[in-house]
């Protein structure tokens, strides 16, 4: 079996499972946020059970409309606070957490080998830790609240084998954009994407999280990486739960894959996903002259300390162009604090960027930093759909923190390596 199959077999009390088999899996952790939680609460109340199945396994994180930008959002937050209080659930409120997919692993809620579901499509991020993690809707989250179980179809798996060493300013974001560009937005639909190979083994948790985070953008049910010493190091001091033997979370030599894809990053250049589809991916040299009005560095895809360091490296001693507004949003309070300690905030503010509080921000066009008709934003986030970040007449380009920072300086989409060469 491959790692995903092993986790699903264990969770459903079976010795083995096969692709396309439907299993009834025990859930180890379920997460809802402020935009999916209220519907889940409403649905839960209709089921007719009084208490969630296990209050240690339900987490509420307020991150989308944070802090509340409207009375309506404030009401949603109030609903979630009350539910957490009534059910005695762990809640990460304004100023105590940050973006759900950063907070979940940071606070030790993600353990290798477990089944985690979340009412957010980017829940697949936790696959970076060798967990089976997938997004669900609100009603389904309510059903998990009540039963602790979920039916899942065992996915067929695609092995993504990555070799080579990244050039300077080429990042895991460029790799995942390149993968999605080749696979297409429905290339892994219903399937598991298993990232493996020497490049993944030497990659930081931040990089692995970026890869698994965007697995859903090619339709995948989950993205996953075998846990190793890098995983253990990250989790040390974060979780009090016993870690499983990582040897039991390796794919067998005879594990079955629907197909294997090879990627060599050695000669890869920075990649950009052009409007309005995540698979409309081009190397930055082929994007052409694209002036921008906004640059956004943050989100559950690229708001980690490693991402901010990279952006700061590019922005240090530079000024963002007068015609560009630059938003930097650390993914969590912890990342925010770390960035402060390292002096990154000074670099951002000196460069003329605005640093905002840890939250989802402009990524989903619900809160701050929305775009007007005809405006262009280059963003480290995960989706560039029509209307995603505001006006349906605005355009969103997706890129790495280095590319976005370089573009903020020049005012047009720019290869970070060229900016450096000029300086």
């Amino acid at each position: 079996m491959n790692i995903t199959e092993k986790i699903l077999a264990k969770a459903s009390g079976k010795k083995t499972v096969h692709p396309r088999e439907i299993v009834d899996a025990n859930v180890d952790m379920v997460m809802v946020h402020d935009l999916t939680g209220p519907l889940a609460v409403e649905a839960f109340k209709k089921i007719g059970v009084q208490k969630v199945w296990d209050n240690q396994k339900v987490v509420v994180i307020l991150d989308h409309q944070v802090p509340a930008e409207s009375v309506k959002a404030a009401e949603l937050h109030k609903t979630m606070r009350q539910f957490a209080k009534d059910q005695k659930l762990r809640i990460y409120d304004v100023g105590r957490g940050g973006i759900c997919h950063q907070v979940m692993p940071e606070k030790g809620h993600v353990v290798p080998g477990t089944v985690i579901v979340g009412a957010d499509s980017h829940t697949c991020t936790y696959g970076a830790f060798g967990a089976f993690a997938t997004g669900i809707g609100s009603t389904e989250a309510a059903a998990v609240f009540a039963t602790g179980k979920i039916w899942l179809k065992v996915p067929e798996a695609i092995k993504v084998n990555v070799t080579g060493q990244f050039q300077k300013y080429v990042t895991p974001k460029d790799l995942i954009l390149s993968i999605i560009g080749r696979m297409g937005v429905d290339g892994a639909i219903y399937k598991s994407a298993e990232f493996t190979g020497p490049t993944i083994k030497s990659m930081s948790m931040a990089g692995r999280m970026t890869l698994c985070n965007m697995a859903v953008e090619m339709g995948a049910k989950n993205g996953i990486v075998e846990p190793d010493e890098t995983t253990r190091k990250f989790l040390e001091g974060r979780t009090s739960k016993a870690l499983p033997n990582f040897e039991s979370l390796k794919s067998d030599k005879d594990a079955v894959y629907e197909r294997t894809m090879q990627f060599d990053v050695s000669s890869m250049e920075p990649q950009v996903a052009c409007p309005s589809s995540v698979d409309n991916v081009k190397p930055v040299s082929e994007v052409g002259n694209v002036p921008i009005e906004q640059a956004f560095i943050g989100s559950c895809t690229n708001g980690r300390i490693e991402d901010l360091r990279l952006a700061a490296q590019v922005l240090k001693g530079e000024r963002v162009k007068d015609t560009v507004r630059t938003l930097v949003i650390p993914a969590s309070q912890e990342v925010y604090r770390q960035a402060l300690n390292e002096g990154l905030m000074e670099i951002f503010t000196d460069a003329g960027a605005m640093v905002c509080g840890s939250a989802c921000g402009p990524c989903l066009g619900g809160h701050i930093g929305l775009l007007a008709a005809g405006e262009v934003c280059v963003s480290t986030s995960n989706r560039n759909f029509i209307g995603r970040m505001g006006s349906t007449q605005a355009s969103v380009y997706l890129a790495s923190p280095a590319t976005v920072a370089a573009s903020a300086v020049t005012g047009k989409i720019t290869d970070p390596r060229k900016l450096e060469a000029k300086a």
Partner: protein
Amino acid sequence: MNMKIKGKVIKFGNNIDTDVILPGKYLILVDPYELAKHALESLDPAFPEKAKKGVILVGGKNFGCGSSREQAPLALKYTGVKCVLAESFARIFFRNAINIGLPVIECKGISDAVETGDELSVDFEAGKIENISRGKSFQANKLPPLILEILSDGGLIENLRRRINKK
């Protein structure tokens, strides 16, 4: 829920994402009828009006890709969409639709075989789709018994209530 329906088609293309079905800025709305007013407005502002009398939505590949927002299928359901037929669905949208009692069926070849305005009849149990306007019928991927049961109960919550009460 009625497991056989008839209705007129409104057709869209490939990769209709949930941001297009219901933009993020409306996720703070709670009333499903309010959500419905904005369904698919970025592609066709008149869609809610057109769908009012009850329509069958037909899509291409990867219908409902993107965000896990259940407000997307909810908005469609409360606009008047009776069911969605597509070449393939994004998995979270597929589950969400079933869970709120909006039937969705995968049917290869459907997007080339129907046009907006065609009248279809759909039998969910048999997985049979008939294009009454063109006198053609199709066999779709049959829904597994587990899903048919959820649909016939009207959604996952109703299904769960029935199962819990039975215990």
